[in-house]
């Protein structure tokens, strides 16, 4: 989680990674997921949060969440 805490993240989804100087953009749900990850929530809880807040089933939400986590890992923002 320390990697995520080192990022500078704006409210509208702009992410700056000081260690490399790279910038990223994410959307509303991406921001929400990062927020939950920072709070230390496990994946199944995040999926519950998403399905409560958004019009989506658990299978799709889970699939998209794990894909998003892969992105974060690939960009070395997550362990």
């Amino acid at each position: 989680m320390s990697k995520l805490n080192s990022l500078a993240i704006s409210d509208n989804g702009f992410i700056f990674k000081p260690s490399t100087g790279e910038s990223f953009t994410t959307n509303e749900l991406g921001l929400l997921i990062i927020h939950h990850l920072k709070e230390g929530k496990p994946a199944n809880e995040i999926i519950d949060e998403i399905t409560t807040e958004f019009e989506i089933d658990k299978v799709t939400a889970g699939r998209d969440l794990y894909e998003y986590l892969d992105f974060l890992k690939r960009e070395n923002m997550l362990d």
Partner: protein
Amino acid sequence: MNKKIYERPVLRKVVEGIPNKFGSVKRLQPIETIDNVPIDGIIEKYGSPVFVISEKTMRETYRTAHRAFSTRYPKVQFAWSYKTNYLDAVCRIFHQEGAWAEVVSGFEYEKAIDNGTPGNKIIFNGPDKSDADLIRAINNKSLVHIDHFDELYTIIGLVDKLKERPQVAIRVNMDTGIIPQWDRFGFNYENGEAWNAINRLLSNGKIDLIGLHIHIGTYITMSKAYATAVEKLAALANKTYDRFQTSIGYIDVGGGFASQNTLQGAYMLATDTTPSFDDYAHSITTAMTAVNFPNNETPMLILETGRALIDDAGWLAGTVLANKRLADGRRSMVIDAGVNLMFTAFWYDHEIYPVHESSFQSEPTTIYGPLCMNIDVIRKNIDFPMLNKGDHFVVKRVGAYTMTQWMQFITYRPNIVLIDEKGEVHLVRKAEDKEVFRRQELVPEYLQNK
């Protein structure tokens, strides 16, 4: 409580660099209807994928092209290039507009006859004409465009058996500044082969040479090349008159006008670079009026343009089958229409659009067809909205060569529908099913189940 609309999470790296001079890519606007007919409804009724042809676009395009030439030159005749799209409904619409038929095989010739085209309004091109094809065409007074010496001698050999005098033209190839120069069809101008062919034809005395034909290439974006061709054909016509006192009745400049589909590797979009019908008409008719034909006669100008007349009228609607990540993390999308239906995807950057707005995010995406073949790529690495499985897409400008060059590979070819000028949808070619193949195949008795 109303829940929020879901949009899957995305993360995009901001890539630094100098923006290109055309600015950033604008977001793709969905296309929900074709001629005001909802695409979803067409897919629901006729299945996915489905080809859709707009009669309105066909007629408007034809009239624009015809007007461009007929307002500049007194005798203009279009001949519909069957190979571009030989669906009977398509051919009949162009015939209704006044186009003759231009065919390149016995099969296409039969189609033209079945579509009610009078024999003397069929131009028979191509290198493959059997003796039976030639006899039928000549007896129908069709215009036979001779491609090679073997064909020329075949006609000379057949003359005594025929009811009618053959009405022929010779196809000429030449250097018009186009690279590559198309020299596999017809007789070469520069090396004197075309003149030799004319001599052999007219020395016979039983064959009428009524036209000269050229087809300088395909997707010609340099309209001046046609002017060069006209000048050389006029020189040939004059030489023919001087020696044989035979006037050439028509100059056929073939086809090859570019459509607005962008060729792969092109720097700019074809919508910005393709010459208009007026550009082509200006070059060709200016050359036709500038050169002197024998006796100051004005030969008829025949045009066989196919691609530019039909490409815009054709659409392909279909469905997303899957999204997946490639090994390097790039996004790919699999759709239910591949190079089996869009052979043209090998050389065009086809324009593909979502039918509905599904996401405000887009991502570099490679779009694959459904075939078990690595080469089944519809678009490489385009910025495309994130459609989900089951969402619909539509491909623009697929009227030319798709419905004739399509392949039957591992799946059936789909329905083709025509939207008429009143917005009514008509099925004009039925999707194939297993019965189509059962009818064609024979199983030897020893392999049949007892």
